Protein backbone atom coordinates (compact mmCIF):
# COMPACT_ATOMS: atom_id res chain seq x y z
CA UNK A 1 0.00 0.00 0.00
CA UNK A 2 1.54 3.30 -1.05
CA UNK A 3 0.66 6.27 1.05
CA UNK A 4 1.23 8.73 -1.76
CA UNK A 5 0.32 7.65 -5.19
CA UNK A 6 2.67 8.93 -7.84
CA UNK A 7 1.36 9.01 -11.37
CA UNK A 8 4.90 9.01 -12.82
CA UNK A 9 5.59 5.59 -11.38
CA UNK A 10 2.35 4.18 -12.67
CA UNK A 11 3.00 5.70 -16.05
CA UNK A 12 6.35 3.98 -16.20
CA UNK A 13 4.54 0.76 -17.09
CA UNK A 14 2.53 2.90 -19.38
CA UNK A 15 1.04 0.10 -21.42
CA UNK A 16 -2.53 1.20 -22.01
CA UNK A 17 -5.01 -1.05 -20.29
CA UNK A 18 -7.84 0.33 -22.36
CA UNK A 19 -7.50 1.82 -25.77
CA UNK A 20 -9.95 3.18 -28.34
CA UNK A 21 -8.69 3.76 -31.90
CA UNK A 22 -11.16 5.56 -34.17
CA UNK A 23 -14.09 3.73 -32.64
CA UNK A 24 -17.45 4.49 -34.24
CA UNK A 25 -20.76 3.05 -33.29
CA UNK A 26 -24.01 3.24 -35.22
CA UNK A 27 -27.21 1.71 -33.88
CA UNK A 28 -29.25 -0.55 -36.16
CA UNK A 29 -31.78 2.26 -36.61
CA UNK A 30 -29.05 4.46 -38.11
CA UNK A 31 -28.43 6.69 -35.09
CA UNK A 32 -24.74 7.51 -34.84
CA UNK A 33 -23.78 7.25 -31.18
CA UNK A 34 -19.99 7.53 -31.42
CA UNK A 35 -17.79 8.90 -34.14
CA UNK A 36 -14.07 8.15 -34.41
CA UNK A 37 -13.35 8.18 -30.71
CA UNK A 38 -9.72 7.67 -29.76
CA UNK A 39 -8.17 7.71 -26.30
CA UNK A 40 -6.39 5.37 -23.93
CA UNK A 41 -6.23 4.77 -20.21
CA UNK A 42 -3.12 3.41 -18.52
CA UNK A 43 -2.71 1.89 -15.08
CA UNK A 44 -2.92 4.56 -12.42
CA UNK A 45 -4.82 6.88 -14.71
CA UNK A 46 -8.31 7.97 -13.88
CA UNK A 47 -10.01 9.27 -17.00
CA UNK A 48 -13.45 10.84 -16.83
CA UNK A 49 -15.64 11.47 -19.82
CA UNK A 50 -18.01 14.32 -19.29
CA UNK A 51 -20.89 15.39 -21.47
CA UNK A 52 -24.62 16.05 -21.30
CA UNK A 53 -27.26 13.32 -21.23
CA UNK A 54 -27.73 11.56 -24.54
CA UNK A 55 -24.29 12.35 -25.99
CA UNK A 56 -23.26 8.69 -26.15
CA UNK A 57 -21.17 8.43 -22.96
CA UNK A 58 -22.95 5.35 -21.73
CA UNK A 59 -22.69 3.76 -25.16
CA UNK A 60 -18.96 4.40 -25.04
CA UNK A 61 -18.74 2.55 -21.74
CA UNK A 62 -20.85 -0.33 -23.01
CA UNK A 63 -18.52 -0.64 -25.99
CA UNK A 64 -15.46 -0.49 -23.74
CA UNK A 65 -16.82 -3.28 -21.52
CA UNK A 66 -17.93 -5.44 -24.41
CA UNK A 67 -21.65 -5.24 -23.57
CA UNK A 68 -22.20 -3.66 -26.99
CA UNK A 69 -20.13 -4.18 -30.10
CA UNK A 70 -18.87 -1.17 -32.01
CA UNK A 71 -19.24 -0.74 -35.76
CA UNK A 72 -15.79 0.53 -36.75
CA UNK A 73 -12.33 1.01 -35.36
CA UNK A 74 -10.42 -0.86 -32.69
CA UNK A 75 -11.28 -1.23 -29.04
CA UNK A 76 -8.73 -2.95 -26.89
CA UNK A 77 -9.31 -3.65 -23.21
CA UNK A 78 -8.47 -6.18 -20.57
CA UNK A 79 -11.90 -7.76 -20.21
CA UNK A 80 -10.76 -10.62 -18.04
CA UNK A 81 -10.10 -8.25 -15.20
CA UNK A 82 -12.84 -5.72 -15.57
CA UNK A 83 -14.72 -3.86 -12.89
CA UNK A 84 -18.00 -2.24 -13.85
CA UNK A 85 -20.21 -0.11 -11.68
CA UNK A 86 -23.65 0.59 -13.09
CA UNK A 87 -25.82 3.67 -12.86
CA UNK A 88 -28.03 1.77 -10.41
CA UNK A 89 -26.44 -0.37 -7.76
CA UNK A 90 -27.96 -3.47 -9.46
CA UNK A 91 -27.81 -5.49 -6.25
CA UNK A 92 -29.70 -8.76 -6.25
CA UNK A 93 -32.53 -8.11 -3.77
CA UNK A 94 -32.61 -11.72 -2.58
CA UNK A 95 -29.00 -11.66 -1.48
CA UNK A 96 -27.54 -10.06 1.63
CA UNK A 97 -24.77 -7.47 1.37
CA UNK A 98 -22.19 -10.21 1.98
CA UNK A 99 -23.59 -12.48 -0.75
CA UNK A 100 -23.99 -9.58 -3.17
CA UNK A 101 -20.38 -8.60 -2.70
CA UNK A 102 -19.34 -12.20 -3.32
CA UNK A 103 -21.37 -12.43 -6.54
CA UNK A 104 -18.74 -11.60 -9.18
CA UNK A 105 -16.20 -13.85 -7.50
CA UNK A 106 -18.77 -16.62 -7.21
CA UNK A 107 -19.70 -16.36 -10.90
CA UNK A 108 -16.04 -16.49 -11.85
CA UNK A 109 -15.41 -19.59 -9.78
CA UNK A 110 -13.37 -18.24 -6.89
CA UNK A 111 -13.45 -20.89 -4.11
CA UNK A 112 -15.84 -20.15 -1.28
CA UNK A 113 -13.35 -19.56 1.54
CA UNK A 114 -11.26 -17.22 -0.59
CA UNK A 115 -14.19 -15.19 -1.90
CA UNK A 116 -15.57 -14.83 1.60
CA UNK A 117 -12.27 -13.38 2.77
CA UNK A 118 -11.97 -11.10 -0.26
CA UNK A 119 -15.53 -9.92 0.28
CA UNK A 120 -14.72 -9.15 3.89
CA UNK A 121 -11.81 -6.98 2.81
CA UNK A 122 -13.84 -5.21 0.13
CA UNK A 123 -16.68 -4.53 2.57
CA UNK A 124 -14.14 -3.11 4.96
CA UNK A 125 -12.60 -0.96 2.21
CA UNK A 126 -15.95 0.68 1.37
CA UNK A 127 -16.78 1.13 5.06
CA UNK A 128 -19.74 -1.25 5.29
CA UNK A 129 -18.43 -3.59 7.98
CA UNK A 130 -21.30 -4.57 10.27
CA UNK A 131 -23.90 -4.49 7.51
CA UNK A 132 -23.06 -7.86 5.95
CA UNK A 133 -26.36 -9.50 6.85
CA UNK A 134 -28.62 -6.72 5.61
CA UNK A 135 -30.70 -7.02 2.49
CA UNK A 136 -30.55 -4.28 -0.17
CA UNK A 137 -33.99 -2.92 0.72
CA UNK A 138 -32.66 -2.10 4.19
CA UNK A 139 -29.85 0.06 2.76
CA UNK A 140 -29.76 3.74 1.85
CA UNK A 141 -28.85 4.78 -1.69
CA UNK A 142 -25.27 5.51 -0.66
CA UNK A 143 -24.86 2.15 1.07
CA UNK A 144 -26.23 0.35 -1.97
CA UNK A 145 -23.64 2.07 -4.14
CA UNK A 146 -20.89 1.15 -1.67
CA UNK A 147 -22.01 -2.48 -1.84
CA UNK A 148 -21.93 -2.28 -5.62
CA UNK A 149 -18.39 -0.86 -5.50
CA UNK A 150 -17.29 -3.62 -3.15
CA UNK A 151 -18.74 -6.26 -5.46
CA UNK A 152 -16.41 -5.10 -8.25
CA UNK A 153 -13.44 -4.53 -5.93
CA UNK A 154 -13.50 -8.20 -4.92
CA UNK A 155 -12.12 -9.13 -8.33
CA UNK A 156 -9.25 -6.61 -8.01
CA UNK A 157 -9.93 -5.26 -11.49
CA UNK A 158 -7.14 -3.84 -13.57
CA UNK A 159 -9.64 -1.72 -15.49
CA UNK A 160 -12.49 -0.16 -13.56
CA UNK A 161 -15.44 1.46 -15.35
CA UNK A 162 -18.09 3.64 -13.76
CA UNK A 163 -21.31 4.59 -15.49
CA UNK A 164 -22.54 7.71 -13.64
CA UNK A 165 -22.62 5.74 -10.40
CA UNK A 166 -23.36 8.66 -8.09
CA UNK A 167 -25.95 10.40 -10.25
CA UNK A 168 -28.90 9.31 -8.14
CA UNK A 169 -27.39 10.23 -4.77
CA UNK A 170 -27.92 13.34 -2.72
CA UNK A 171 -25.12 15.91 -2.73
CA UNK A 172 -23.75 14.93 0.67
CA UNK A 173 -23.52 11.18 0.01
CA UNK A 174 -22.20 11.98 -3.41
CA UNK A 175 -19.24 13.99 -2.19
CA UNK A 176 -18.49 11.44 0.49
CA UNK A 177 -18.47 8.62 -2.05
CA UNK A 178 -16.20 10.65 -4.34
CA UNK A 179 -13.75 10.99 -1.45
CA UNK A 180 -13.95 7.26 -0.78
CA UNK A 181 -13.53 6.37 -4.43
CA UNK A 182 -10.35 8.43 -4.61
CA UNK A 183 -9.04 6.71 -1.51
CA UNK A 184 -9.78 3.31 -3.08
CA UNK A 185 -8.22 4.36 -6.39
CA UNK A 186 -5.12 5.46 -4.51
CA UNK A 187 -5.04 2.11 -2.74
CA UNK A 188 -5.73 -0.19 -5.71
CA UNK A 189 -4.12 1.64 -8.61
CA UNK A 190 -6.44 0.42 -11.34
CA UNK A 191 -7.03 2.16 -14.69
CA UNK A 192 -10.25 4.11 -14.15
CA UNK A 193 -12.80 5.18 -16.74
CA UNK A 194 -15.59 7.25 -15.27
CA UNK A 195 -18.67 8.69 -16.95
CA UNK A 196 -20.54 11.66 -15.54
CA UNK A 197 -22.41 14.82 -16.50
CA UNK A 198 -21.09 16.66 -13.47
CA UNK A 199 -18.09 18.84 -14.25
CA UNK A 200 -16.91 19.27 -10.61
CA UNK A 201 -17.15 15.50 -10.10
CA UNK A 202 -15.03 14.93 -13.20
CA UNK A 203 -12.40 17.46 -12.16
CA UNK A 204 -12.24 16.28 -8.56
CA UNK A 205 -11.75 12.60 -9.40
CA UNK A 206 -9.60 12.49 -12.48
CA UNK A 207 -6.10 12.62 -13.79
CA UNK A 208 -7.65 13.51 -17.15
CA UNK A 209 -11.02 14.88 -18.21
CA UNK A 210 -12.30 14.29 -21.75
CA UNK A 211 -15.20 16.34 -23.04
CA UNK A 212 -17.68 14.79 -25.37
CA UNK A 213 -19.67 16.50 -28.09
CA UNK A 214 -23.37 16.05 -28.75
CA UNK A 215 -24.43 13.00 -30.72
CA UNK A 216 -22.60 11.57 -32.57
CA UNK A 217 -20.19 11.62 -29.64
CA UNK A 218 -16.62 12.73 -30.30
CA UNK A 219 -13.86 13.69 -27.92
CA UNK A 220 -13.54 17.44 -28.32
CA UNK A 221 -11.22 18.41 -25.48
CA UNK A 222 -8.69 16.73 -23.22
CA UNK A 223 -7.69 18.32 -19.89
CA UNK A 224 -4.94 17.10 -17.58
CA UNK A 225 -5.79 17.62 -13.94
CA UNK A 226 -2.51 18.30 -12.13
CA UNK A 227 -3.26 17.71 -8.44
CA UNK A 228 -1.61 14.78 -6.74
CA UNK A 229 -3.36 11.98 -4.92
CA UNK A 230 -4.54 11.61 -2.27
CA UNK A 231 -6.62 14.71 -2.90
CA UNK A 232 -8.17 16.42 0.07
CA UNK A 233 -11.88 17.02 -0.08
CA UNK A 234 -11.41 20.76 0.38
CA UNK A 235 -9.61 21.27 -2.91
CA UNK A 236 -13.19 21.55 -4.19
CA UNK A 237 -13.30 25.03 -2.65
CA UNK A 238 -9.99 26.28 -4.04
CA UNK A 239 -9.79 28.93 -6.78
CA UNK A 240 -7.70 26.59 -8.97
CA UNK A 241 -10.46 24.02 -8.79
CA UNK A 242 -13.08 26.56 -9.83
CA UNK A 243 -10.85 27.75 -12.64
CA UNK A 244 -10.37 24.20 -13.94
CA UNK A 245 -14.12 23.52 -13.77
CA UNK A 246 -14.62 26.76 -15.66
CA UNK A 247 -12.33 25.64 -18.49
CA UNK A 248 -14.06 22.28 -18.82
CA UNK A 249 -17.51 23.87 -18.73
CA UNK A 250 -16.48 26.42 -21.31
CA UNK A 251 -15.39 23.78 -23.80
CA UNK A 252 -18.62 21.85 -23.25
CA UNK A 253 -20.59 25.03 -23.72
CA UNK A 254 -18.92 25.70 -27.05
CA UNK A 255 -19.51 22.15 -28.26
CA UNK A 256 -23.15 22.13 -27.29
CA UNK A 257 -24.06 25.65 -28.29
Amino acid at each position, binding site marked *: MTEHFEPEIAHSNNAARLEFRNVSMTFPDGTEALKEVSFSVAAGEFVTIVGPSGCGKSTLLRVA*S*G*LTTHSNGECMSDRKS*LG*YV*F*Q*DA*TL*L*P*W*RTVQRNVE*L*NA*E*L*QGVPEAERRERARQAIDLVGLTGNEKK*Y*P*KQLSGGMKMRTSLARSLVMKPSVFMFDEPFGALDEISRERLQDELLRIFDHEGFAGLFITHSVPEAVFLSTRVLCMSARPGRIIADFSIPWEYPRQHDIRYSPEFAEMCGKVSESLREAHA
Partner: protein
Amino acid sequence: MSTQTKLLKTYAPPLATFGAFIGVWYAVHYFILSENRKFIVPPPHAVIDNSFLNGIARSELAEGLVNTGRIALFGFLIASVLALFGSVLMAGNRMIERALFPYAVALQTVPILALVPLFSVWFGPTRTARIVTCVLVAIFPILTSFLFGLKSVDSGHQDLFTLNNVSRTTRFRKLLFPAALPSIFTGLRIGAGLCVIGALVADFFFSRGDLGLGRLLNNYAKRLEYEKLFGGVILASALGVAIYILIGWIANRSLRDWHESEARSA
Protein backbone atom coordinates in the same frame (compact mmCIF):
# COMPACT_ATOMS: atom_id res chain seq x y z
CA MET B 1 -47.55 -3.35 22.96
CA SER B 2 -47.76 -6.63 24.88
CA THR B 3 -47.88 -9.91 22.97
CA GLN B 4 -51.43 -10.46 24.17
CA THR B 5 -52.78 -7.19 22.77
CA LYS B 6 -50.86 -7.87 19.59
CA LEU B 7 -52.45 -11.30 19.21
CA LEU B 8 -55.83 -9.79 19.97
CA LYS B 9 -55.35 -7.12 17.33
CA THR B 10 -54.27 -9.72 14.78
CA TYR B 11 -56.93 -12.34 15.34
CA ALA B 12 -59.92 -10.49 16.78
CA PRO B 13 -61.06 -8.77 13.53
CA PRO B 14 -61.26 -11.92 11.36
CA LEU B 15 -62.83 -13.87 14.25
CA ALA B 16 -65.44 -11.14 14.65
CA THR B 17 -66.25 -11.39 10.94
CA PHE B 18 -66.59 -15.15 11.27
CA GLY B 19 -68.92 -14.73 14.25
CA ALA B 20 -71.03 -12.24 12.34
CA PHE B 21 -71.24 -14.63 9.40
CA ILE B 22 -72.49 -17.47 11.61
CA GLY B 23 -74.95 -15.02 13.20
CA VAL B 24 -76.34 -13.99 9.82
CA TRP B 25 -76.58 -17.64 8.84
CA TYR B 26 -78.69 -18.42 11.92
CA ALA B 27 -80.75 -15.28 11.43
CA VAL B 28 -81.58 -16.24 7.85
CA HIS B 29 -82.74 -19.65 9.00
CA TYR B 30 -84.75 -18.61 12.07
CA PHE B 31 -86.02 -15.12 11.28
CA ILE B 32 -86.06 -14.56 7.55
CA LEU B 33 -87.12 -17.78 5.84
CA SER B 34 -90.74 -18.81 6.13
CA GLU B 35 -91.46 -22.14 7.83
CA ASN B 36 -91.78 -24.15 4.62
CA ARG B 37 -88.59 -22.78 3.10
CA LYS B 38 -86.30 -23.14 6.11
CA PHE B 39 -84.79 -26.35 4.69
CA ILE B 40 -82.93 -24.43 1.93
CA VAL B 41 -80.61 -22.88 4.50
CA PRO B 42 -80.13 -25.40 7.30
CA PRO B 43 -78.64 -23.95 10.48
CA PRO B 44 -74.90 -24.54 11.13
CA HIS B 45 -75.40 -27.05 13.96
CA ALA B 46 -77.67 -29.19 11.72
CA VAL B 47 -75.05 -29.14 9.00
CA ILE B 48 -72.39 -30.33 11.42
CA ASP B 49 -74.75 -32.98 12.86
CA ASN B 50 -75.80 -34.41 9.54
CA SER B 51 -72.62 -34.27 7.55
CA PHE B 52 -69.71 -34.46 9.99
CA LEU B 53 -71.16 -36.33 12.99
CA ASN B 54 -73.29 -38.75 11.00
CA GLY B 55 -71.13 -41.83 10.32
CA ILE B 56 -72.29 -42.64 6.77
CA ALA B 57 -72.19 -39.08 5.48
CA ARG B 58 -68.85 -38.53 7.17
CA SER B 59 -67.14 -41.49 5.53
CA GLU B 60 -68.71 -40.60 2.18
CA LEU B 61 -67.50 -37.01 2.42
CA ALA B 62 -64.07 -38.10 3.63
CA GLU B 63 -63.70 -40.42 0.65
CA GLY B 64 -64.81 -37.67 -1.70
CA LEU B 65 -62.42 -35.19 -0.15
CA VAL B 66 -59.46 -37.56 -0.42
CA ASN B 67 -60.22 -38.43 -4.05
CA THR B 68 -60.84 -34.87 -5.17
CA GLY B 69 -57.90 -33.57 -3.16
CA ARG B 70 -55.62 -36.15 -4.73
CA ILE B 71 -56.75 -35.28 -8.27
CA ALA B 72 -56.33 -31.55 -7.57
CA LEU B 73 -52.88 -32.07 -6.11
CA PHE B 74 -51.63 -34.29 -8.95
CA GLY B 75 -53.12 -31.92 -11.50
CA PHE B 76 -51.48 -29.00 -9.76
CA LEU B 77 -48.04 -30.64 -9.66
CA ILE B 78 -48.19 -31.70 -13.31
CA ALA B 79 -49.46 -28.29 -14.43
CA SER B 80 -46.72 -26.51 -12.46
CA VAL B 81 -43.91 -28.67 -13.80
CA LEU B 82 -45.14 -28.38 -17.39
CA ALA B 83 -45.57 -24.62 -16.97
CA LEU B 84 -42.05 -24.33 -15.61
CA PHE B 85 -40.56 -26.21 -18.57
CA GLY B 86 -42.71 -24.30 -21.03
CA SER B 87 -41.87 -20.90 -19.61
CA VAL B 88 -38.14 -21.64 -19.42
CA LEU B 89 -38.19 -22.81 -23.03
CA MET B 90 -40.10 -19.72 -24.16
CA ALA B 91 -38.00 -17.31 -22.10
CA GLY B 92 -34.83 -18.83 -23.50
CA ASN B 93 -35.76 -18.90 -27.16
CA ARG B 94 -37.60 -16.16 -28.95
CA MET B 95 -38.64 -18.39 -31.85
CA ILE B 96 -40.22 -20.95 -29.55
CA GLU B 97 -41.95 -18.15 -27.70
CA ARG B 98 -43.33 -16.69 -30.93
CA ALA B 99 -44.52 -20.14 -32.00
CA LEU B 100 -46.24 -21.05 -28.73
CA PHE B 101 -47.17 -17.99 -26.72
CA PRO B 102 -50.10 -16.78 -28.84
CA TYR B 103 -51.71 -20.19 -28.37
CA ALA B 104 -51.05 -20.19 -24.65
CA VAL B 105 -52.92 -16.89 -24.48
CA ALA B 106 -55.68 -18.03 -26.84
CA LEU B 107 -56.18 -21.29 -24.94
CA GLN B 108 -56.81 -19.32 -21.76
CA THR B 109 -59.99 -18.03 -23.35
CA VAL B 110 -61.19 -21.50 -24.39
CA PRO B 111 -63.75 -22.70 -21.87
CA ILE B 112 -61.87 -25.85 -20.89
CA LEU B 113 -64.94 -27.04 -19.03
CA ALA B 114 -66.71 -27.46 -22.35
CA LEU B 115 -64.06 -30.01 -23.27
CA VAL B 116 -64.62 -32.23 -20.24
CA PRO B 117 -67.25 -34.42 -21.97
CA LEU B 118 -64.68 -35.02 -24.70
CA PHE B 119 -62.10 -36.15 -22.17
CA SER B 120 -64.61 -38.57 -20.72
CA VAL B 121 -65.16 -39.97 -24.22
CA TRP B 122 -61.41 -40.29 -24.79
CA PHE B 123 -60.23 -41.48 -21.41
CA GLY B 124 -63.39 -42.86 -19.80
CA PRO B 125 -64.40 -41.82 -16.27
CA THR B 126 -60.82 -42.36 -15.11
CA ARG B 127 -58.39 -40.48 -12.95
CA THR B 128 -56.54 -39.60 -16.15
CA ALA B 129 -59.53 -37.72 -17.50
CA ARG B 130 -59.89 -35.83 -14.24
CA ILE B 131 -56.23 -34.96 -14.03
CA VAL B 132 -56.16 -33.80 -17.65
CA THR B 133 -59.08 -31.50 -16.88
CA CYS B 134 -57.26 -30.07 -13.86
CA VAL B 135 -54.05 -29.55 -15.78
CA LEU B 136 -55.74 -27.79 -18.67
CA VAL B 137 -57.76 -25.53 -16.41
CA ALA B 138 -54.70 -24.48 -14.42
CA ILE B 139 -51.69 -24.56 -16.72
CA PHE B 140 -52.10 -21.41 -18.80
CA PRO B 141 -52.48 -18.88 -15.99
CA ILE B 142 -49.50 -20.52 -14.26
CA LEU B 143 -47.47 -20.47 -17.47
CA THR B 144 -48.14 -16.81 -18.22
CA SER B 145 -47.20 -15.77 -14.67
CA PHE B 146 -43.96 -17.78 -14.87
CA LEU B 147 -43.08 -16.35 -18.26
CA PHE B 148 -43.86 -12.82 -17.11
CA GLY B 149 -41.49 -13.31 -14.18
CA LEU B 150 -38.68 -14.75 -16.28
CA LYS B 151 -38.94 -11.96 -18.82
CA SER B 152 -39.17 -9.06 -16.37
CA VAL B 153 -35.63 -9.46 -15.09
CA ASP B 154 -33.89 -6.12 -14.69
CA SER B 155 -31.64 -5.35 -17.67
CA GLY B 156 -28.88 -4.07 -15.37
CA HIS B 157 -28.82 -7.46 -13.64
CA GLN B 158 -28.67 -9.14 -17.04
CA ASP B 159 -25.68 -6.96 -18.01
CA LEU B 160 -23.98 -7.77 -14.73
CA PHE B 161 -24.23 -11.49 -15.48
CA THR B 162 -23.16 -10.95 -19.09
CA LEU B 163 -19.99 -9.18 -17.92
CA ASN B 164 -19.16 -12.27 -15.87
CA ASN B 165 -19.47 -14.55 -18.92
CA VAL B 166 -21.86 -16.92 -17.19
CA SER B 167 -23.37 -20.02 -18.77
CA ARG B 168 -27.09 -20.18 -19.48
CA THR B 169 -27.68 -22.57 -16.59
CA THR B 170 -25.85 -20.33 -14.13
CA ARG B 171 -27.82 -17.33 -15.37
CA PHE B 172 -31.03 -19.26 -14.87
CA ARG B 173 -30.15 -20.61 -11.43
CA LYS B 174 -28.66 -17.46 -9.95
CA LEU B 175 -30.60 -14.72 -11.71
CA LEU B 176 -33.72 -15.63 -13.70
CA PHE B 177 -35.23 -18.12 -11.30
CA PRO B 178 -34.86 -16.11 -8.07
CA ALA B 179 -35.91 -12.92 -9.85
CA ALA B 180 -39.02 -14.65 -11.18
CA LEU B 181 -39.90 -16.24 -7.84
CA PRO B 182 -42.53 -13.67 -6.80
CA SER B 183 -44.34 -14.10 -10.12
CA ILE B 184 -43.92 -17.86 -9.89
CA PHE B 185 -45.69 -17.90 -6.55
CA THR B 186 -48.46 -15.69 -7.93
CA GLY B 187 -48.92 -18.24 -10.72
CA LEU B 188 -48.91 -21.14 -8.27
CA ARG B 189 -51.55 -19.52 -6.09
CA ILE B 190 -53.87 -18.92 -9.00
CA GLY B 191 -53.17 -22.42 -10.31
CA ALA B 192 -53.89 -24.08 -6.96
CA GLY B 193 -57.36 -22.57 -6.78
CA LEU B 194 -58.07 -23.49 -10.38
CA CYS B 195 -56.99 -27.11 -9.83
CA VAL B 196 -59.55 -27.55 -7.06
CA ILE B 197 -62.20 -26.13 -9.38
CA GLY B 198 -61.00 -28.43 -12.18
CA ALA B 199 -61.16 -31.50 -9.97
CA LEU B 200 -64.65 -30.65 -8.70
CA VAL B 201 -65.99 -29.93 -12.16
CA ALA B 202 -64.53 -33.13 -13.58
CA ASP B 203 -66.35 -34.96 -10.77
CA PHE B 204 -69.60 -33.25 -11.67
CA PHE B 205 -69.42 -34.73 -15.15
CA PHE B 206 -68.57 -38.28 -14.16
CA SER B 207 -71.22 -40.40 -12.55
CA ARG B 208 -68.87 -43.37 -12.54
CA GLY B 209 -65.29 -43.95 -11.38
CA ASP B 210 -63.86 -42.66 -8.10
CA LEU B 211 -66.35 -40.97 -5.84
CA GLY B 212 -65.35 -37.30 -5.57
CA LEU B 213 -66.74 -34.26 -3.80
CA GLY B 214 -68.20 -32.94 -7.05
CA ARG B 215 -70.40 -35.96 -7.57
CA LEU B 216 -71.43 -35.96 -3.89
CA LEU B 217 -72.52 -32.34 -4.14
CA ASN B 218 -74.50 -33.21 -7.23
CA ASN B 219 -76.17 -36.19 -5.52
CA TYR B 220 -77.02 -34.30 -2.34
CA ALA B 221 -78.55 -31.47 -4.34
CA LYS B 222 -80.69 -33.90 -6.34
CA ARG B 223 -81.82 -35.71 -3.19
CA LEU B 224 -82.58 -32.42 -1.42
CA GLU B 225 -80.14 -33.39 1.39
CA TYR B 226 -79.24 -29.80 2.02
CA GLU B 227 -77.48 -30.34 5.35
CA LYS B 228 -75.03 -32.67 3.63
CA LEU B 229 -74.80 -30.37 0.62
CA PHE B 230 -73.67 -27.56 2.91
CA GLY B 231 -71.18 -29.94 4.52
CA GLY B 232 -69.76 -30.80 1.08
CA VAL B 233 -69.53 -27.14 0.11
CA ILE B 234 -67.64 -26.41 3.33
CA LEU B 235 -65.18 -29.24 2.67
CA ALA B 236 -64.60 -28.19 -0.94
CA SER B 237 -63.93 -24.62 0.20
CA ALA B 238 -61.64 -25.87 2.96
CA LEU B 239 -59.65 -27.85 0.37
CA GLY B 240 -59.13 -24.74 -1.76
CA VAL B 241 -58.22 -22.64 1.26
CA ALA B 242 -55.81 -25.29 2.57
CA ILE B 243 -53.85 -25.44 -0.70
CA TYR B 244 -53.83 -21.66 -0.92
CA ILE B 245 -52.51 -21.33 2.62
CA LEU B 246 -49.85 -23.98 2.01
CA ILE B 247 -48.52 -22.12 -1.02
CA GLY B 248 -48.81 -18.81 0.77
CA TRP B 249 -46.71 -20.22 3.58
CA ILE B 250 -44.01 -21.47 1.22
CA ALA B 251 -44.03 -18.12 -0.61
CA ASN B 252 -43.68 -16.28 2.66
CA ARG B 253 -40.77 -18.47 3.77
CA SER B 254 -38.91 -17.88 0.51
CA LEU B 255 -39.64 -14.21 -0.07
CA ARG B 256 -40.12 -12.50 3.26
CA ASP B 257 -36.52 -11.36 3.65
CA TRP B 258 -36.33 -9.45 0.44
CA HIS B 259 -39.62 -9.01 -1.40
CA GLU B 260 -42.11 -6.27 -0.53
CA SER B 261 -45.13 -8.53 -1.08
CA GLU B 262 -44.14 -10.75 1.84
CA ALA B 263 -42.33 -8.24 4.02
CA ARG B 264 -42.90 -8.64 7.72
CA SER B 265 -44.71 -5.66 9.12
CA ALA B 266 -42.55 -4.09 11.77
